[in-house]
């Protein structure tokens, strides 16, 4: 028997209603279920830093010139760093934490770039800076919840991890391929997230990137939540939402209108006889 609910007329009605209510745009913007992501398991990492070397080699970047003893930080020619981090909750144990661009699902950096030099590939997950377009304003650095995009003072552009997007999805990013203990994986995000949750549950760890900054395409299994590890904490929501930007800008526009109104009032109140009408 024919299902009365799925007639052509009902389907057209649904589409009409959906487009009116904005549901169609929601569907159009829906994240692909088979999107890719990277998983970093700090419980497996042995701190060999082959990922750092592989990244440098792949991107033809100069070697890291800071002494071994110091805490490594990213810069314009260092897209990823591995640091030994201890948890404030449990100071006896520590883990090597690989850090790079978290490739936010809704990247704040792309939203503030005035020339659209930063784009997000929804399939591979990579947030990419077009170095031929970048004007070097560093607004992306200010907007990034993790303070990742760094300025290369020689090339005078902002640079950061691009997930080796030219290798994707056929080949893995260089750091993933170089890891000798498979502490870094690249694959479907939903599968990796499921795996990360299971592994984190088993070791009472924390999955960074599931909710932070509205979700990121780099997931990291940490010892403890980031605030306990002395890492930058991103809010568990999409940062720099457009509606928020509109609200803030309109407060300024309102103030501007108030100033014009005040000037008019002042001119009317203090008008002399000889003044223009």
């Amino acid at each position, binding site marked *: 028997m024919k299902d009365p609910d799925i007639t052509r007329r009902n389907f057209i009605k649904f589409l009409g209603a959906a487009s009116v209510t904005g549901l169609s745009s929601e569907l159009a913007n829906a994240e692909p279920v088979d999107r890719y992501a990277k998983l970093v398991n700090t419980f497996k990492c042995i701190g060999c830093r082959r990922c750092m070397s592989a990244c440098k080699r792949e991107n033809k970047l100069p070697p890291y010139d800071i002494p071994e003893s110091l805490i490594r930080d990213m810069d314009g020619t260092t897209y990823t760093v591995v640091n030994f981090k201890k948890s404030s909750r449990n100071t006896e144990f520590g883990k090597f934490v690989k850090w790079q661009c978290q490739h936010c699902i809704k990247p704040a950096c792309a939203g503030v770039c005035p*020339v*659209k030099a930063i784009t997000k590939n929804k399939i591979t997950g990579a947030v990419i800076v077009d170095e031929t377009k*970048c004007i*070097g304003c560093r607004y992306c650095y200010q907007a990034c919840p993790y303070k990742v995009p760094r300025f290369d003072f020689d*090339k005078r552009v*902002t640079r950061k991890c691009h997930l080796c997007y030219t290798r994707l999805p056929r080949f893995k990013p260089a750091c993933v391929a170089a890891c000798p203990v498979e502490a870094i994986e690249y694959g479907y995000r939903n599968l990796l997230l499921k795996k990360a949750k299971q592994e984190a549950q088993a070791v009472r760890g924390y999955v960074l990137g599931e909710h932070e900054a509205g979700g990121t395409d780099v997931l990291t299994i940490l010892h403890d939540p980031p605030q306990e590890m002395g890492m930058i904490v991103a809010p568990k929501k999409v940062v*720099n939402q457009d509606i928020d930007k509109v609200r803030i800008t309109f407060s*300024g526009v309102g103030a*501007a209108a108030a*100033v014009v109104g005040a000037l008019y009032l002042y001119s009317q109140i203090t008008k002399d006889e000889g003044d223009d009408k």
Partner: protein
Amino acid sequence: MISKIETIDDKTSCYYIGISLLLSLMFLGVYAAVMSYVESMEILEFHISIPWTMMISTYVFFVASSIGLCIVASLGYVFGLNRYKIISKRGTFLAVITIIFGMLNVLLHLGHPERAPIYTTFTPNFRSAMWGIGFFYNLYIPLIMLTCWLLIRADLAVISENSTGWRHKLYALASGKKWLKSYNLQRFTGVIGAGSLCFGLLALAVEGSLFGHVEAREYWYGADIPVYFIFSSIHLGIAWLIFMTIITYKFKGEEMGERLKKLMLEMGKIFIILLSVSSLFITYKVYAGSIDAMKAKTVMLYIKGALSIPFWIFEMAIGTILPIVVLLFAVQRESLNGLLTAAVMVLAGAFVMKYDFVVAGQVFPVFKKAPLMFPAFMEILLIAGIGAAFFSVYMLAERFLPLKETN
């Protein structure tokens, strides 16, 4: 009564020392700019994790000053107050040069300034406040320049009539009398001026939003920043006008007319009100920040941290409280020296305030403990050079353009 210091026309040793100082500073500024290209832009920054420093704060200071000057000057040619028309020419000219030198700061800060006009045109990001700033300043700058030209062109024509040779030709060309016969363009000037005022205010609103949008910078984030930018620009505009007008008359050794003096004192009274409102803003900023868990750490930098001296001494004492006291006396005793002192103090305080605001916002969450937040030596040289170039351009304009108030 204005006392005569050294007049520009006297060309005394003091005059030559002043010119040499300006030229030296400009040379050092050019040296710093060239070195930033030849060596590395890194020489202009005191810390890699604080990329926006003095150049950005000076840019903000200059553009806010420009819009403030435009607001005050517009009272004459847009809102029709005759007593304000006498300062329109100087006001709009100052608005033009402050915005140009402000933009110079940001252009020198960009990694690739040459790409900005290309890609903001062909691949604009309407979601970015920075794009919005570029858009509105691109409308504001030509309009304020046109307003300035419309205000002075009749005087340029008079100079042309009264001179001979190349001077006559040059001023005739500058007045544009060949193409625009009529000099009675008050309404047109008003419309253009209104346009520049609106776009300038919109640009400044978006300028504040540039900082206000950044959710990842807790101290900057919020709807109050654009509002503060707009209101603080007005007292900057008044401070610049009082400072430049009185100092010009002092250096030229000329007597200020009664109407102008009366207007200066009227602006002094408005100045007191605006500074009082500004002090309320600062109190609100400190109070709201201290009870907001996200902003409290940065506010503590101001109250008892790395920025406590700039905050208490420059922002509060020199930039707000003392000028109010000085202005109260100056207005009561009709002292132009008092007005000048207050204006200088406000400008110095506002300059430091902008620097503190820009730098303090970038400390957390990157640093656990605030670093020393003193600008890099090369950056200071660059800013000093830009400042010297600004004053040199003003002096040249004062010499060759009819900016003088007509009583």
